[in-house]
Each structure stands twice: as structure tokens, then as C-alpha cells.
């Protein structure tokens, strides 16, 4: 790194920081300003500039560590990547303009300085983007796992009666998992009736209906009844409008009705205590 630039940045650190904060505040959109308090903004900005200056003195592990920490923090705070990137560009612009004003850059050395500057900034830029995408990927994969865990629970509620409550959108991958869990659960719990509750499924289109019908058929093959509960009015409307034939499957409007029907199938019923004493 060019000694000249390094010296300039070190000497004018506070000046650059102030300018940077002012410029960035104009550039940041309202959303960002709202979530971050002034103090937090100043502190994070200072940290950012600190991080960049670390890169000047030491070009190795120390910088990488700080960058990782910073990227994680910034992602958590919800700062967009474009903003951080812009910040980096702004930093180099301010530094460069400052150096021009003070006459440190002149006709003779400008090419050298620009070249030096560029070879200093570009790897940093890359590293930040890299770190950002890594952090995001990590978050996404964690969420994917969490979603998978939530995707198809099977609950034995009564002897021989099992419920599978479904919440959220169903895609092909999830439908497959639902089918597997459903069948394995039926065999494991030795259920006679399985209730699929779709109260929490926002949309039932032909694909979802197809998967549900398949699951119901498969349940019948392993020797149990399959019932569909929690059909909301709008779902009923879509099903009929799409011309989906659910005639083969027993449908009920609530889980409660479903359980009553399931008890009936297994020739049992719930009676109140007084009635029994009579």
C-alpha cells in the first residue's frame, strides 16, 4: 500500500469519518434510518471505517476476522448489501477527493495512486460481498432445516385415531414428505383413521389437491381411512371452481367434526358422565 495514501487516511481519519457519515445518511433510505438509531449508526460507521483502516496496517487474518464480525453484525441489523457497498465506494471517493484537495495527488503520481488504491479496494469489496452471501446462505439453510422440521408432524390423539395438521404452503417436496410421514405414522401407530387438517393451508390449488388425493389413496391402501378436515369456505369454492373431484375422500369442516366422525368409524362415541350414571 502506498505510504502516501496510508498516511493521509491515518492523519485525516476523523475528518473522513465525519464526511462519510454525512454523505451516507443522505444516501441511506428511510427504512434503514428508522431501524437504526443515530448513535448506533455513528458507532457502526466508525467501526466500518476502523475496519477499513485495519486493512491498511495489516493485510491478513486480523482484517478477515473483523470483516466476519462486521458482516454478521450488519446482516443482523438488516443493513442492505448495496448500502455497505456504497459505503465502501463513498470512503474511497472521499479519501481521494481529500487527497486531491490537499495537493497530495498530482499529474505525475496520479496513475500510481489510482492503481494502488484500486488494488487496495477491490479485494476488500470482494471479501465483503463474499462474507455477506455466506452469511445469507447460512441463514437460508438454517431456515430450510427449521421449515423441514415443522413440515409434517403426525399426532396420535386417541387410540387408533391420528391427526396431521398442515400449516403453510405445500409444494411437491413437502407433499412427498407429508405422504411418507403419514404412511409410516399410520403403520407405526396402527391407526384406523387419519385426519388431515388443512386449516393452516392458505391456498389449495390443483397440485395441492392432487397430492392430498394421492395421500388419501395411499392411506387407504395401507388399510386406514383418510379424512380431510378444516376446509374453509374459500377453499371449498376454489376446489369446486377448479373442478377437483374430492368425492372419494370424506371431508369435514372442522377438526372437531372430523374426530367425531372418526370415533363413529371406530364405533366409539364420547358420552357425558351424567349420562353414564343413569
Amino acid at each position, binding site marked *: 500500500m502506498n505510504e502516501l495514501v496510508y498516511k493521509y487516511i491515518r492523519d485525516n481519519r476523523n475528518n473522513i469519518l465525519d464526511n462519510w457519515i454525512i454523505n451516507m445518511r443522505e444516501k441511506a433510505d428511510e427504512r434503514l434510518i428508522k431501524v437504526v438509531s443515530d448513535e448506533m449508526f455513528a458507532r457502526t460507521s466508525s467501526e466500518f471505517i476502523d475496519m477499513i483502516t485495519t486493512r491498511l496496517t495489516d493485510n491478513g487474518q486480523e482484517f478477515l476476522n473483523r470483516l466476519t464480525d462486521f458482516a454478521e453484525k450488519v446482516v443482523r441489523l438488516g443493513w442492505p448489501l448495496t448500502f455497505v457497498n456504497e459505503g465502501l465506494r463513498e470512503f474511497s471517493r472521499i479519501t481521494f477527493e481529500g487527497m486531491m484537495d490537499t495537493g497530495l495527488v498530482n499529474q505525475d503520481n496520479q496513475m500510481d495512486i489510482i492503481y494502488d488504491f484500486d488494488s487496495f479496494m477491490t479485494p476488500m469489496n470482494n471479501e465483503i460481498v463474499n462474507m455477506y452471501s455466506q452469511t445469507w446462505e447460512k441463514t437460508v439453510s438454517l431456515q430450510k432445516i427449521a421449515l423441514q422440521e415443522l413440515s409434517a408432524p403426525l399426532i396420535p390423539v386417541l387410540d387408533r385415531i391420528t391427526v396431521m395438521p398442515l400449516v403453510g404452503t405445500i409444494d411437491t417436496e413437502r407433499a412427498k414428505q407429508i*405422504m*411418507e410421514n403419514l*404412511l*409410516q405414522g*399410520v*403403520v407405526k401407530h*396402527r391407526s*384406523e383413521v387419519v385426519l388431515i387438517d388443512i386449516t393452516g393451508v392458505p391456498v389449495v390449488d390443483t397440485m395441492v389437491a392432487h397430492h392430498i388425493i*394421492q395421500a388419501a*389413496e*395411499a*392411506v*387407504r*391402501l*395401507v*388399510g*386406514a381411512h383418510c379424512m380431510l378436515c378444516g376446509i374453509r369456505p374459500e377453499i371449498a369454492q376454489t376446489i369446486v371452481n377448479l373442478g377437483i373431484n374430492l368425492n372419494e375422500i370424506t371431508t369435514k369442516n372442522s377438526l372437531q367434526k372430523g374426530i367425531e366422525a372418526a370415533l363413529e368409524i371406530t364405533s366409539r362415541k364420547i358420552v357425558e358422565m351424567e349420562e353414564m350414571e343413569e
Partner: protein
Amino acid sequence: MRIPILKLYDCLLVSIQWELDDATALQFQEDLLHKIHETSANGVVIDITSIDFIDSFIAKVLGDVVSMSKLMGAKVVITGIQPAVAITLIELGIVLDDVLTALDLEKGLEKLQQELGD
């Protein structure tokens, strides 16, 4: 190797213990129909608990056996279809529409008695 078909009161009991090949399946179809004719059984229980894989041909033969037995006046219950087998059948588009199914042999027999009693 032929699949043994056992008579239990007025029912026939078949337990398929190994993966079927095409010839065995066809042989089984023939044997079962003859046995139904011989014993004039009212019901048949086919237990396929130990079958983990099934192909479209075997599935078709099974479906045919059921329809044929029905023609001869015997109700058929298939028991112990494994989850993986059920998924395969559905994916192959074989729904075995008019077949009664049960979780295991015990439940299958119960179901058959119920059906025959009606």
C-alpha cells in the same frame, strides 16, 4: 415355488412371504381361482406384509386377482401393504379401487367377517 393357500373356515388365507416374480404371480393367480372354485370360499385375505417392493406387473396381477375373485363370489382383503409399496402403487397410478385393505392380518380377518356378515 408355489405360494401356499390355506383354508380357514369359509375363508382362504394367503401370505406372500417373498418377492414375487412374474411367473409365480401368474401361477398364484391360477391357483387361487382354482382353490376358490374347489372350496367355494366366501372370502380371501392376502397378506403382503413382507413385500417391500412392487412393480407394475405384480400390481396389475394383484388387481386382476381381486376382480376375478369377486366375479367368483369371494370378497378379497389385502393386508399389510407397506408405506413404500403404497407410494409406488399410487405413483404408478394403480389405485386398486374396489379392493378392501387393512393394516394387518388380524384387522383384515375382522373386516372380512364384517363384510361377509352384512
